[in-house]
């Protein structure tokens, strides 16, 4: 089929204004926040499940790749069309279809931004807990496709824990519904769980039933300073084994502390080798008790402990923490944060060992590595800033990232705890998953035998 014929058909489905083949547009959609690149031939902004299904059916008939995209904030190239074809920009499908709060759930389209859902829920006293750093930008579709999580996952878990059901467009354009509005259902395989985290390689999510939670009555933040990240890692293990479940447990190393203080001087974090940021939420008495238990657990290892005094201070701390991944670019005029090797997860007991390994890797490749992340669930973000015009910097960066990935796997960890595999980490899946990857490939073949859905991703 000629490209112009295809364009005509796509325009018939979604309307002329919702298809672009402009070079500028295609160029913009050839990126996300990772280093993966791929140029689409068409970008489409559908507004309904029917439009998505029709586009996918056409692509199925013609054997054209289809890559779904939310806000394009991904750090692994999940939404980058590495084999060209069609990009489906889902961000126009951004309605909250139903607020069924008596049933503690909402029904949403995938293009809604996480923060907008939470702003809509707040007046009713509810929230959707998965809280990535990109919550003001990322869409729920992206969160579902990557099983994203973030700062509160230590207590509240990942997106998967909140998805009750999905409407999914399959590779041939068939629309199915998985799960249900019931809290529990064991009717059949958990297809919902299969699609969550499948990065658009098995189907395209067009609707989701999500669980929400009542907002906690009280939240309190505690900052504990340490001489170095390893001591902080030990404190985390101690806190978590003491029986308290903080609603957030973040580590910031000294460079990250500088980056936060540079980005927002109001936050004024204390100087230290590392800081642990704990948040406890719940009833007033539970929060008080939790904070006191954390203080006790940290006291023998920390050099200082400080509580955020009010809501404003707490919110400023979290706002700055959310954006620190990019804010580290401010530390040096010629250097930019590059997201590679940035999302490892290890068993929590191995955190101090992994932190030690990261500092060894930093020395071995002579590249500063800043560490921050959701240490409470063993998820460390290792941040490297380079002069992106310097080829030698790139070489060091890629070698260090490779070693970080391999080291994490070797101690029983994962190459990606929440950002996704995409095109950036596909090469490690065989090493991490072994024969389980073969099963993934079988599933992919069963659901997408022509391989049109987000090809070139996840090692399938």
């Amino acid at each position: 089929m000629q490209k112009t014929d295809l364009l005509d058909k796509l325009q018939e489905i979604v309307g002329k204004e919702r298809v672009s083949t402009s070079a500028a547009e295609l160029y913009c959609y050839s990126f996300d926040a990772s280093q993966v690149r791929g140029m689409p031939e068409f970008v489409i902004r559908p507004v309904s499940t029917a439009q998505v299904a029709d586009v996918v059916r056409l692509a199925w008939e013609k054997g054209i790749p289809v890559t779904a995209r939310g806000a394009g904030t991904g750090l692994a190239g999940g939404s980058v069309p590495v084999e060209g074809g069609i990009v489906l920009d889902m961000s126009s499908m951004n309605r909250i279809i139903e607020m069924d709060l008596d049933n503690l759930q909402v029904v949403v389209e995938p293009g809604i931004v996480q923060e907008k859902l939470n702003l809509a829920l707040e007046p009713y006293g509810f929230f959707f807990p998965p809280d990535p750093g990109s919550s003001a930008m990322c869409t729920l579709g992206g969160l579902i496709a990557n099983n994203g999580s973030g700062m509160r996952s230590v207590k509240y878990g990942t997106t998967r824990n909140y998805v009750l059901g999905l409407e999914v467009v399959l590779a041939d354009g068939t629309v199915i519904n998985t799960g249900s509005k019931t809290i529990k259902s064991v009717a059949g395989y958990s297809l919902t769980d299969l699609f969550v985290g499948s990065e658009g390689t098995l189907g395209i999510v067009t609707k989701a039933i999500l669980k929400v939670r009542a907002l906690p009555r009280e939240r309190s933040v505690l900052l504990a300073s340490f001489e170095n990240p390893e001591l902080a890692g030990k404190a985390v293990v101690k806190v978590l084994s003491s029986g308290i479940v903080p609603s957030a447990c973040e580590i910031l190393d000294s460079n990250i502390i500088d980056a936060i203080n540079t980005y927002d001087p109001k936050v004024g974090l204390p100087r230290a080798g590392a800081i642990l940021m704990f948040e406890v939420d719940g009833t007033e008495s539970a929060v008080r008790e939790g904070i006191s238990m954390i203080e006790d657990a940290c006291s023998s290892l920390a050099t200082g402990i400080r509580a955020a005094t009010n809501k404003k201070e707490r919110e400023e701390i979290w706002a700055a923490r959310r954006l620190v991944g990019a804010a580290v670019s401010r530390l040096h005029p010629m250097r930019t944060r590059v997201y590679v090797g940035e999302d490892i997860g290890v068993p929590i007991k191995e955190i101090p060992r992994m932190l030690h390994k990261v500092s060894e890797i930093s020395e071995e490749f002579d590249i500063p590595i800043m560490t921050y992340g959701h240490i409470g669930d063993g998820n460390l973000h290792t941040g490297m800033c380079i002069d992106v015009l310097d080829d030698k910097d790139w070489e060091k960066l890629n070698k260090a990232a490779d070693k970080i990935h391999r080291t994490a796997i070797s101690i029983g960890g994962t190459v990606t705890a929440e950002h996704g595999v995409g095109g950036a980490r596909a090469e490690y899946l065989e090493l991490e998953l072994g024969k389980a990857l073969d099963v993934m490939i079988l599933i992919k073949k069963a659901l997408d035998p022509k391989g049109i859905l987000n090809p070139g991703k996840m090692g399938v």
Partner: protein
Amino acid sequence: MLESDMRSILKCVRCGTCRSVCPIFDVVGWESSSSRGRMLVAHGVSQGLEVDEGVLNSLNTCTTCGICEQLCPSGAAPPKVVENTRHQLVLQGKMTQAQKDIASRANELGNTLGETGERMAWLGESAKDVREKADYVYFAGCLGSYRYPELARRTFDILKRFGVTVLKDEVCCGSPLLRTGSDPMELVSRNLEQIRATGAHTIITGCAGCYTTLKNDYPGDLKVVHVSEFLADRLAEMDLKKLDLKVSYHDPCHLGRCNGVFDAPRNIITSICDLKEMKNIREKSRCCGAGGGVLKGYPELSQELAKRRVGDIPEGVDYLVTSCPLCRTNLKRGGPEVEVLDIIDLMEMAME
């Protein structure tokens, strides 16, 4: 491409923070209409991306409101990159009809509005109060001169008691040219020569566009103040009555976010009446949609932005006050339920 712009682009990690706040993207919805998209397009152009209508629309739909730069965690400066890329393309003859019109009108007529009438006619009888020499010059601007002549005259009537004069042959400050990539130097020189001749050390303007241009693109020894700053410092001498009104205030981007003038207009308002703030204010104020050549080049898009900004007006206010005639013009196009006033209009009401 300038090295500083390339560095700014390379600072961008494409996190999408700007995309979530860009008021143009909020309306258009295509990635190329977001700040992140424009940074990519500017980069693409430097790498050989062909300059077609899509590229020009991407770059020219930016109002240069600066909220992206304000919130960018990496420290990138998209409005500067946009303006400089527009300039590079204009030098190559690649521009929209609106850009051409803005530049040719400003250079031929001394204003961007296509007006051929006597610019200083707004002075009316106050022409007799224009002095050859003064410490302060009131710069009325194109919109003040031609669209709001009464406002310009009343502003001057308030200011003249403080030893303020005007330029006899004022021309456009150059802001629309700078924003849209053209060279403003001829206009700058004409104004500057006259400013020097008055011996003034300070220029006073009531327009956010003139303010940012006079402050940042004219010689640094000239002090530039907004009329609200000038008068906020002289409230004790103004004998303003209290009014039983409640008003809201729109921060012009090029006055507030880009130059930090937030408090002076608020101080004037609260000395006269009650202030009930809009939904997004100060550094996070939402653009009215007029700046950066967007009102001229993309009037419908500009109007849609104005409508959304009008949606930020709180319930129960008598007026929306602003301190820029371009914002005022566009906010009116946004169809507010209340009248949009200049801050001078409010002061006049308190002086009656």
